[in-house]
């Protein structure tokens, strides 16, 4: 993975010093609440219900074992022994003390980590495919481009005070695992007829209050124009994005109100001034590619036979393999999911003890690298098949091997009312209740691929509108209610879920979900996934059953 140069290190060290001064000035009363707010957000600090929340960047999801140990240390020293992985491949601490945040950031800087631009109205952490570099369906590795974009977006002097937050995602595979069509800018690596890698550029996608699917603004952008084109889009957005209404300030609204055609003209006119002056050189790209060269794979890894034996002899292992692993481009290797969705843990939460142990496992069996996924799990991307059994046993002992990846209990869930001051309703408790209702693994496996996403308010941090089942917390006269949607998807067939009907009360939400699953099981065709069934059947059969008694 990318290793900092001296310049990178200096930059984050200087950022820490700057934020330390800002925090001191705030406590001295020299910065107002409002002024400090803008500055602290750009350093990952939110103030929420109980305490500040610190969001640390996981650049396109990659974290080293050393960094994971540092996260464990911070959880232990400054927090309540755990942290939380978000849907944007970032890491959150829920209980740090504000005055200690500069100190925490200084600790993070010692392992090349930071919290720069993880919140606020600026360019956020670039996200990508959690299987980048190992996926079997990869066209080109997105990580070098992600790093180029990470550097370009970091402390960009012109674009740090945008109308609203701005998110860029990059996918290099045939199957989009980075929800690129729901980002302000989504980039797909594609090849032209000559076989050269370039970008298909989507613009104006987004979730939140007004979910919109991104539109193609450039079917093929040459690699060398990447940064000049991004600059053109950002300048048009910075100048013309709405600043009068925070709910209409995202670029998706600008694109919608301007119209794609007109918006494209504006961008192209701006770009015409920039494209020749600011080319990204092939040497620079190659330099970055070298940082992401494949590790030293054992080319005889697939000759191991113990793996097949374990699979036959240990049913639990076989079940875990079937659900918690993904194919790897190198024969004899497998990508292993670490499930952060054990039934008794809030989705995405992980303890200091688990983190330390995961770092050890990564060092021993996966080249010391860990990845964060968009569904709040972790991945060990390069495990040899001969090691799978051991890795599974170790993970199981840590309660990190619940075989539920991609299934109903692999829910994504925001912190909701338990932590977030914006929440209308709880989400962690509901997730737990649904988990308890679905405690039969065979049933879960029979239902198969299912994405349940639950957010505590319209901001939609858990992407409920693209969940196959989306659950949205709403406030009804001070009580917690839940709006259900069906049929959303953030993959290639991007779709926004359709509302099932009126919101349901808190004591009925779990029943509603199990009813929906029952309808699916009764009506599905052979091999038909939940999403396919919803698309074929429409929402009526589900609606009838869920509201049958009302």
């Amino acid at each position: 993975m990318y290793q900092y140069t001296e310049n990178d290190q200096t930059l984050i060290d200087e950022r820490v010093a700057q934020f330390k001064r800002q925090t001191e000035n705030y406590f001295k009363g020299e910065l107002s609440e409002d002024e400090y707010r803008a500055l602290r957000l750009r350093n990952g600090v939110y103030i929420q219900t109980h305490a500040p929340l610190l969001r640390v960047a996981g650049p396109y999801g990659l974290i080293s074992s050393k960094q994971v140990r540092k996260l464990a240390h911070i959880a232990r020293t400054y927090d309540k022994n755990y942290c939380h992985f978000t849907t944007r491949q970032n890491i959150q601490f829920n209980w740090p003390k504000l005055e200690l945040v500069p100190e925490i950031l200084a600790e993070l800087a010692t392992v090349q980590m930071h919290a720069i631009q993880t919140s606020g109205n600026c360019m956020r952490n670039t996200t990508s495919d959690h299987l980048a570099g190992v996926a079997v369906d990869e066209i080109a590795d997105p990580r070098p481009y992600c790093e180029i974009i990470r550097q370009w977006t970091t402390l960009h002097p012109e674009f740090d005070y945008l109308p609203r937050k701005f998110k860029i995602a990059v996918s290099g595979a045939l199957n989009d695992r980075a929800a690129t069509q729901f980002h302000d800018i989504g980039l797909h690596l594609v090849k032209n007829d000559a076989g050269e890698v370039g970008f298909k550029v989507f613009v104006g996608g987004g979730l939140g209050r007004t979910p919109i699917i991104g539109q193609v603004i450039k079917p093929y952008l040459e690699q060398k124009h990447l940064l000049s084109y991004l600059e053109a889009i950002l300048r048009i957005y910075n100048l013309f994005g709405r600043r009068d209404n925070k709910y209409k300030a995202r670029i998706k609204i600008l694109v919608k109100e301007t119209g794609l055609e007109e918006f494209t003209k504006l961008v192209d006119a701006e770009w015409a001034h920039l494209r020749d002056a600011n080319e990204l050189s092939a040497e620079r790209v190659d330099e970055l590619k070298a940082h992401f060269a494949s590790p030293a794979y054992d080319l005889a890894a697939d000759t191991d036979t113990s793996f097949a034996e374990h699979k036959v002899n240990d049913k639990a292992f076989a079940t875990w393999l079937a659900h918690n692993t993904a194919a790897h481009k190198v024969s004899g290797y497998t990508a292993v999911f670490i499930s952060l969705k054990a039934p008794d843990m809030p989705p995405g939460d992980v303890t200091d003890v688990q983190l330390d142990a995961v770092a050890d496992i990564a060092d021993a069996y996966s080249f010391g690298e860990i990845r964060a996924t968009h569904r709040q799990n972790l991945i060990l991307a390069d495990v040899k098949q001969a090691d799978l059994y051991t890795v599974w046993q170790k993970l199981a002992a840590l309660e990190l091997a619940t075989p539920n990846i991609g299934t109903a209990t692999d829910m994504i869930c925001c912190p909701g009312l338990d932590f977030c001051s914006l929440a209308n309703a709880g989400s962690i408790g509901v997730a737990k209740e649904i988990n308890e209702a679905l405690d039969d693994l065979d049933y879960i496996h029979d239902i198969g691929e299912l994405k349940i996403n639950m957010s505590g308010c319209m901001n939609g941090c858990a992407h409920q509108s693209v969940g196959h089942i989306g659950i949205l917390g709403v406030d009804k006269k001070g009580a917690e209610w839940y709006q259900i949607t069906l049929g959303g998807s953030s993959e290639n067939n991007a779709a926004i879920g359709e509302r099932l009907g009126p919101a349901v009360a808190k004591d009925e939400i779990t029943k509603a979900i199990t009813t929906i699953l029952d309808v699916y099981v009764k009506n599905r065709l052979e091999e038909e996934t939940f999403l396919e069934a919803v698309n074929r059947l429409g929402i009526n059969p589900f609606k009838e059953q869920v509201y049958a008694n009302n």
Partner: protein
Amino acid sequence: MQIIKDKQRVDNTWQFIADDAALVAGDITVSLDRWLQDRADLVAHNGKVGLRLKASDSVADFAEDLANIKLVELDFADFADGRSFSQAWLLRGRYDYKDEIRAIGRYLPEQVFYLSRVGVNAYATEKTPDLDAVLNNLNDFTVKYQSSII
């Protein structure tokens, strides 16, 4: 009143003339509206003329006239309105403007490093002690990822 210009404290020699006030001799700044309306008078003015831009003003509206404009003030009504940053960038990067660009109004001394990188070279502050903060914060970073405008 003192300001920071090119990393030095200097006396401010300019005054802003409100749209409904009569012009006075000496170096003055006016709004873009006034410039567009009274251009002929202003070009003939006895003294230098500059513009005071709102974040919503378009640089393209006066870009052809930059030879006549000896100061551009970027007037921040709200420090979070980032359009002024693009205005500065366009003035320097697109239109090759060489004279003074000054940040005024409600920007934060915490923002001056970024401002300097998009081409702002002078800073007026609402509170005098902030001049020191400006000088200090111009050195917040010794490294950067993107190319700067100057």
